[in-house]
């Protein structure tokens, strides 16, 4: 091994220290195996997606009523996802929800209402029961992260994984660098989990500030990009997600508003949501976002969230809990001079993200099977970068499934030597990365990223047509041609260069998948102006994307089948090679 590399051998490499990553690390550590975790931030103590604590947690509890059973919720999953969902994976996640809730409670997380001592369960986002526990989750992630620390995982903070190590469709580690120290790591592992979340900084928002985003702007589709480059199959990448936010600040908190009974009104003061859904403001997030988009396009903006009709005790409760999801939201209202008790709050549509298109249990990202394993053997994915995603709870459950499943290759590969890292190839990766620190004729990464956002906003975002998507794809590819000249001022900037490239690649994958799906589905999550109808006859299908010779290529799979069917043959082929290798 080269002297200026830090080489690490471990059982399980986890990329991303959010809820999914931590919940995956825990069962592996419990089984007595070693874990190395790469984390760009230091988010062991808070959630990867929302930065702070959490204020709601979706779960089945099996508390008695019929609606509170996995079977009941599963019956509604096809309708919740407009028929595009991996039912086998969703079923395993939903069935394991009660077990994982108890496990998290065993870490000391208190899901009950401090005043009543009971679980405060609320019905929202179009779900067919009161599945959301509303609670003060300020300590939620801290207590989960504590388990990872106590069980002695090695956590590499401020460290970005940039490339997977894969041989014969089997993963054996990753290359990473610390952007504070400049140290490079070659990490070999018997199994790898990617849990880096969704894709942000993808399109323009109201404030025009790239890092003012609803979800964490430092989640930049690193898993999707690394997996794609290594040959993994992705699915559902055509769907976007947005939400409504206080105009000017892409902050979360919609769930709290909706649960407490906010109305959405347009410039005429009309409470318009019932024109879009019989559930009104309690419709699915995708329907709410879609309705707001439509109202703005009809010229009915500005749109407001109106709380003035609510009783004082509810308003007091809201004022007291405003900061749980986003600590600075009270300061924003204060600096704006806005009192939501007496005046409506103007709202905007947020920037777009590739996440789970506003519906539960349909994720956009690396296609996974019921063990959370991707099409690359030993490579797992969970959270918002995997094809079954369901907020914090989805990340916790699928993450835990990934960890439990990973103990199998860790055990089975115990005797098998991992491939040696090709240090010439690793050195080339590093040299290419470091060339951005002193480029000739450099392109600032911010300008490059802005260009990606312009293209996505104008041609790939909300209102899609074949012509527009093709224009967008062409422009994204033109932008890619500038990647070798991207310029960073320092190591921190080098990390941003990698993020900017990952964002652009995700945008290209999204545009390719959106072009393939020539129908409209889930409203503005995939709205094709040239194919405005949902085509149930031809499009109850997943769009799969993988790396082709000239860029992303697509295929389709009937959504009645599990995504694992798309890569079962690959695994069988790899297994056969394994057997042959053993015999020789």
């Amino acid at each position, binding site marked *: 091994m080269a002297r200026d590399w830090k080489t690490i051998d471990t059982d399980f490499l986890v990329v991303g220290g959010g809820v999914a990553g931590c919940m995956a690390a825990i069962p592996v550590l419990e089984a007595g195996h070693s874990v190395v975790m790469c984390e760009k931030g*230091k988010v062991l103590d808070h959630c990867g997606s929302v930065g702070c604590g959490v204020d709601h947690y979706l779960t089945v509890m099996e508390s008695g009523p019929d609606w509170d059973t996995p079977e009941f919720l599963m019956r509604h999953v096809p309708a919740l996802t407009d028929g595009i969902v991996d039912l086998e994976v969703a079923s395993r996640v939903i069935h394991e929800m009660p077990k994982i809730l108890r496990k998290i409670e065993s870490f000391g997380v208190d899901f009950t209402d401090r005043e009543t001592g009971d679980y405060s369960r609320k019905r929202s986002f179009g779900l067919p029961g009161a599945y959301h526990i509303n609670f003060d989750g300020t300590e939620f992630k801290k207590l989960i992260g504590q388990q990872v620390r106590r069980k002695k995982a090695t956590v590499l903070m401020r460290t970005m994984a940039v490339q997977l190590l894969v041989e014969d469709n089997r993963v054996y580690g990753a290359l990473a660098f610390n952007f504070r120290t400049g140290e490079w790591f070659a990490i070999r592992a018997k199994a790898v989990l990617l849990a880096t979340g969704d894709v942000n900084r993808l399109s323009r928002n109201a404030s025009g500030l790239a890092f003012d985003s609803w979800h964490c*702007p430092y989640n930049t589709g690193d898993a999707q990009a690394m997996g794609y480059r290594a040959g993994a199959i992705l699915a559902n990448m055509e769907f976007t997600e947005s939400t409504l936010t206080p105009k000017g600040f892409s902050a979360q908190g919609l769930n709290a508003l909706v649960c407490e009974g906010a109305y959405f009104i347009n410039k005429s003061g009309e409470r318009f949501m019932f024109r879009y859904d019989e559930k009104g403001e309690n419709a699915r997030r995708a329907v709410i976002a879609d309705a707001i988009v439509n109202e703005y*396009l009809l010229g009915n903006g500005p749109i407001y969230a109106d709380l003035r009709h609510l009783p004082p005790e509810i308003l007091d409760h809201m004022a007291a809990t405003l900061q749980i999801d986003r*600590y600075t939201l009270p300061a*924003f209202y204060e*600096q704006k001079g806005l009192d939501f008790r007496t005046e409506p709050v103007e709202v*905007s549509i947020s*920037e777009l993200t590739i996440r789970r298109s506003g519906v539960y249990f349909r994720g956009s990202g690396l296609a996974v099977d019921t063990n959370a394993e991707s099409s690359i053997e030993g490579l797992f994915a969970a959270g918002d970068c995997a094809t079954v995603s369901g907020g914090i709870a989805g990340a916790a459950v699928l993450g835990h499934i990934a960890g439990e499943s990973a103990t199998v290759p860790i055990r089975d590969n115990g005797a098998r030597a991992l491939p040696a890292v090709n240090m010439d190839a690793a050195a080339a990766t590093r040299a290419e990365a470091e060339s951005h620190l002193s480029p000739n004729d450099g392109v600032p990464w911010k300008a490059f990223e802005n260009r990606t956002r312009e293209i996505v*906003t104008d041609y790939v975002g909300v*209102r899609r047509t074949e012509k527009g998507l093709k224009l967008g794809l062409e422009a994204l590819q033109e932008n890619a041609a500038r990647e070798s000249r991207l310029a960073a001022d320092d190591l921190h900037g080098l990390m941003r260069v990698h993020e900017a490239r990952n964002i652009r690649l995700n945008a290209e994958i999204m545009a390719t998948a959106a072009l393939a799906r020539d129908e409209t589905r889930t409203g503005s999550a995939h709205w094709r102006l040239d194919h405005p109808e949902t085509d149930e006859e031809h499009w109850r299908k997943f769009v799969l994307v993988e790396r082709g010779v000239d860029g992303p290529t697509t295929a389709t799979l009937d959504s009645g089948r599990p995504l694992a069917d798309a890569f079962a043959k690959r695994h069988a082929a790899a297994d056969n090679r394994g057997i042959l290798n053993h015999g020789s």
Partner: protein
Amino acid sequence: MAASVGAAHNPIRIDAGLCVKCDLCDWICPGDLIHHEEGNRQKLPVIAYPDECWYCGLCQSVCPVNAITVVFPEAMIHCRTDVTTLLGKVVD
């Protein structure tokens, strides 16, 4: 508190009189914006990349002496963007 405009906007205001120069804000910032030399009790933390702030306020929430205030820029507080410009161009 007045908010400044444009690229120079610093969202993370540290009260030099209150700051105890611990490392917590550097440690918690998810975007690697705040840099402070570990253990140096003489130097204030530096907001190295102010335009990459998420306005999450974790630095403010963790500061043991309430020395940090998050200040929103004009573009956020008095946002005048026409929302329809975020909804794409129609290409027939």
